[in-house]
């Protein structure tokens, strides 16, 4: 087992995607975990004399419209942005994959129930749903996870569904059925591993999209309330001051881009390496 893991890892290291993403993620991870120890500034401490100040020795990335230290806001914001994206994708993928697999495998009434159910979810425009939740309960990190997660459930479900449809028709699955294997066994053992690749891609893409959706919601005033400074909220505030200082938009954008690029490259690399069918070709 360990041997196999090591072999996979060695294979991964051959992929430039993986190496680049590993480096990026290490830097981001380090800042997220240890950043608050590095910076002497509280993210909320305001200083009217330093509004829109450029980068300096004390404030490495400069100051925002309230004179707050941008660097400390970025490292604190990293936690919120990452937590929101990881939790929302986990929530969406688990629910979505179960729905999609059940629908694609059992077909019949299950299929109709599951697929029409996701249709109903899709029918509610995403922004409307976000606006609704905010109006009902106010925006918070938990609500964001919920909103973004719900947006992605149909995606996972549909991808899992269409892949399951294809895989379920493949001869060995039909064979397993014929010899009387239990359904859950077939689903977990034969189908799930074979549909993982597109789901992996969707998950990694989703991580990036979640960060972006969060920033879009912040732009519309639906992001998490302060002092929780997510990257998205930082950008959406700073874009109003773009003509005065570009730094407020620049830094968090760089971090968002770096994170999105890293998780996507990671997704590619994992997918290329783990998928048995693709691996065949590279060896």
């Amino acid at each position, binding site marked *: 087992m360990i041997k196999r893991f090591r072999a996979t890892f060695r294979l991964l290291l051959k992929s430039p995607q993986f190496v680049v993403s590993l480096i990026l993620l290490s830097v981001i991870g380090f800042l997220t975990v240890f950043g608050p120890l590095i910076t002497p500034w509280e993210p909320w401490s305001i200083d009217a004399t330093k509004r829109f100040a450029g980068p300096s020795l004390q404030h490495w990335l400069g100051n925002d419209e309230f004179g707050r230290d941008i660097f400390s806001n970025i490292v604190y914001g990293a936690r919120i942005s990452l937590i929101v994206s990881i939790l929302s994708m986990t929530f969406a993928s688990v629910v979505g994959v179960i729905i999609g697999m059940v629908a694609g495998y059992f077909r019949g009434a299950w299929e109709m129930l599951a697929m029409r159910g996701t249709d109903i979810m899709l029918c509610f425009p995403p922004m409307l749903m976000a606006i609704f939740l905010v109006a009902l309960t106010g925006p918070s990190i938990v609500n964001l996870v919920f909103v973004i997660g719900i947006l992605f459930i149909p995606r996972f479900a549909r991808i899992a569904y269409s892949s399951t449809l294809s895989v379920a028709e493949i001869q060995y699955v039909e064979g397993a059925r014929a010899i009387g294997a239990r359904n859950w066994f077939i689903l977990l053992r034969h189908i799930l591993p074979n549909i993982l690749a597109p789901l992996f891609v969707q998950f990694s893409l989703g991580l990036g999209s979640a960060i972006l959706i969060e920033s879009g919601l912040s732009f519309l005033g639906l992001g998490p309330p302060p002092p929780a400074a997510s990257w998205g909220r930082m950008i959406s505030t700073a874009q109003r001051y773009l003509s*005065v200082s570009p730094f407020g938009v620049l830094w968090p954008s760089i971090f968002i881009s770096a994170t999105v690029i890293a998780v996507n490259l990671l997704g590619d690399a994992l997918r290329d390496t783990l998928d048995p069918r693709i691996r065949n070709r590279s060896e």
Partner: protein
Amino acid sequence: MGGELRVGIARDVVNMAPWLSQGASVYIIQQNVYDNLINYDDDGNLAPELAVSWEVVDPQTYVIHLREGVVFHDGDTFDAEDAKVSLDMMRDPTGTSALAPQLADVEEVNVLDPYTVELKLSQPNVVVFSALASSTAHILSKEWLEAGHDLNTEMNGTGPFIFSEFEPGVQTVLVKNEHYWKEGMPYLDKVIAVPYRDDSARINALLSSEVNFIEYVPYIEFDRLKQDDAYSMYAGVGPYNFLHLNVNEPPFDDARVRQALNYLIDRDLLIQLTAGGAGVPIEVGLLQPDDPYYNEDLARWKFDPDKALELLQEAGYENFSDISFVLTCSTVTVHKDPAEAIQATLQGFGMNVEIKYIDVPTLLDYRQNGGYVAMMDGQSAAYQDPDAYSAYFETGAPGYSTATDFSDETLDELLAKGRVESDFETRKQIYHDFEERLLELTPWYFGYFRPQGEAMEAKVKGYRRWPGLLGAHSTSRFEYVWIEE
């Protein structure tokens, strides 16, 4: 002279109905189509519009003499019948008129002759004339009203421009009224109002010449536009920001805690952070320093953390950190920014403030029905008179009192007295007493007046901005504006 003025407005017009208080973006359209009986001159004093003069015959009888030779856009001649019908609808308590509470003392409106109307009051009320000068006191045609036009989608006034077209989200078009009663005016051939909800989109529209005039310039652009010769910029202070405090909920059920908050949150800092320094702190009540009723001696809300701590200790708290509360705030930028700044500065003192966002309709609901401990809000006076206080602090007032069951006999008495009193000095003293009592009770955190400005390309000439708080209504006078080619 002439030309086509393209105006970037901050909010789309949803409804053309008269007498509603819908804010500056809508006044640009409605106030250029409708006229009032009374309006303000350039110095901010009451001046004739469709009225030529008015007199107080006795404290309960006011007579207004009307202008002759004015025609509505549909050709109907303006006379006393039109004024009566408009006034009657304006004061209908179950109608939609924003001025109904201010005109509640008007018992009947009588037509004395084709160009004279008489107002009979149940008790003296000197606020009536200011109310008639407000931006929602539109005069409509009786015949047109009776013909059953849809007030939500049609307009027929006597103003400098004729309503021609409304396309939701795209534009509202006004065209020149060739028969306007002011000689030689208006100069512009056409006014096209284009809604830009997003601040950046609106400023970009001006910079890229999509429009040649914008309202609600984001404060951050003030300096840049002032320095640029290609643009003219007019600014003053407009609405004020404040916190509603719930006098029935801890920690704000104790007046000392409310006072402490007023000493603890630095208004100058808020103005620096959220308005680039271009605001005016509220140190007394809601009257500006240039208001004739302003009381300099009362000015006391200065930043003083020691005093704040002292008051808190009197109220039984040991430290700032013993206080924590939820600050409810709408997601509108001009509310969000100061709320965030307040949270950050209080956090600096160790006070724990949690912000709860709500959307605008919820804010409107909370204003009247409560549901908050502290809530950020922004308002501007509905009319130029210290009686504007009554919309918030009189018992049962929809702006604040009903939400928190706030009620004070002294305040009610003084407001009632102020409405009846016609002697300026006596009246001034009444409102000074009122403010003194109000500051004692401190139902709000009194914040600051925030800047409000309009910017236009340099070729747009003739724009006149009113002084003081009236400035916010200046876009209602496009008859003076022209474009120099």
